[in-house]
């Protein structure tokens, strides 16, 4: 089972066991990690499950598709490594992925 690390804005680290095929957003929410609102439930319609991919992982995470990228333009503090976690699907290749959460989703 892949393990993800999510780091809250205040530095608190969470190690999360994720199921393959699940979105990173859902894995984090199922583990009750605070900071991902996911208002729309994973339909790529709200941009409130924003996180930053750790630099070491950037090359190994697929790039955002156009819809996601357009939505991200309105996420707080969008950066090169910004992703919407509802669009990141857990696979063996993401075992060990590290993500940092923004200060706010709004």
């Amino acid at each position, binding site marked *: 089972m892949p393990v993800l690390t999510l780091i809250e804005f205040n530095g608190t680290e969470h190690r999360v066991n994720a*199921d393959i*095929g*699940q*979105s990173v957003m*859902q894995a984090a*929410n*199922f583990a*009750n990690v*605070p900071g991902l609102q996911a*208002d*729309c*439930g*994973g*339909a*790529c*319609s709200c*941009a409130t499950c924003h996180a930053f991919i750790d630099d070491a992982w950037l090359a190994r995470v697929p790039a955002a598709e156009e*819809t996601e990228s*357009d*939505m991200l*333009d*309105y996420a707080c503090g969008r950066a090169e490594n910004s992703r919407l976690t509802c669009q990141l699907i857990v696979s063996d290749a993401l075992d060990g992925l590290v993500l940092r959460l923004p200060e706010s989703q709004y």
Partner: protein
Amino acid sequence: MSLASIVIVGAGQAGYQVAASLRQEGHTGRIVLIGDEPGLPYQRPPLSKAYLLGKIADTALLFRPADFFATQNIELIHDQATAIDRINRRVLLASGEALSYDHLVLATGAHNRPLAVPGAQLEGVFGIKTKLHADTLAPLVHAARDVVVVGAGFIGLEFAAVAAALGANVHVLELGDRPMARAVSREMSEVFRKAHEGWGVHFDFRQGLASIESDNGKVCAVITSDGRRLPADLVVFGIGVIANVQIASEAGLHIENGIKVDAHLLTSDPQISALGDVACFPCLHNDQQPIRLESVQNAVDQARCIAARLMGKPAAYEALPWFWTDQGALKLQIAGLSTGYDSSVIVGSPETSQLSVLCFRNDQLIAVESCNRPGDHMAARKILARAPQLTAAQAAAPGFELKAWEVANRP
């Protein structure tokens, strides 16, 4: 105000979110969440699209796993609330139990308006509201050859797109003269009509259903109101919903197109709040006129508003309504309410189904409908959340882009 016990009736999106937000806000008292469906609280939007197509698993429908409710000490009860005893502040349940409350939250939702035609009870005739409906329907739609959809609203069209993608002949009957007439502009309706027709969906506007015919107890055809017979293995209807007001009404709460609430989402009893599909609230974005909205955004934002108030941070509910629907390759995102718009400006290209329709009333922007233009939608939500100064003439100028205007006009 002591809130030792908060009881929430209804464990859909709104009820679940009230419970979760109360804990997030630090509420330490008892929280009881009463749901009348089996299992854990789940999301409904995917039922008529991704879930039906088998693109997402049933665990992906859940808001949270079982241990969340245990660790957060949210008591999830599978039962039906049958009455509210306001004098003694108790909710009576079908099981015979009674739950005392210091504050009661009604999130009873809505049920599908039933088809009132002969044959509506036949095997093979479905509304889509619950996971059980979707689970029963999924294998049938994969096997269906001729599908009739009654009602060209969001749910009907989402289902029509799924059935067409799975290879069925799909026929949509709609009493109005265009798709999604209650929710979107004429311009956007036209884009969706053409798209569905391109996927092989056949529309019959200004056409109702007279009856459903059966063969050995199973649906085999429908008769339209003008007397035509259409073959059908499967009939799916989405003709609106009816707010579940019964227990509120019997308890003497003010009912008016749902449970009437004030700007703080309180009912006519200050110990009882209501929200979500069942609540009719004065809407800042509807000229302060009362409205009842059936949407995820409405349920989630109203839940947060109620949780904040119960935790001592009262604020009037003023969130901008927004909606989405996914149909085939089209994602329609709507910000604001277009009811009563008197002019519109199209940005983008209807030919490629990448466009936004900006709806104005008295030259004031009131809503933006974006099809496959998610950046426009997000910009529109920013623009509409503050009193927008954008005029139709500005929007109609060559080269106008919502995102650029939003950036240039930030307060």
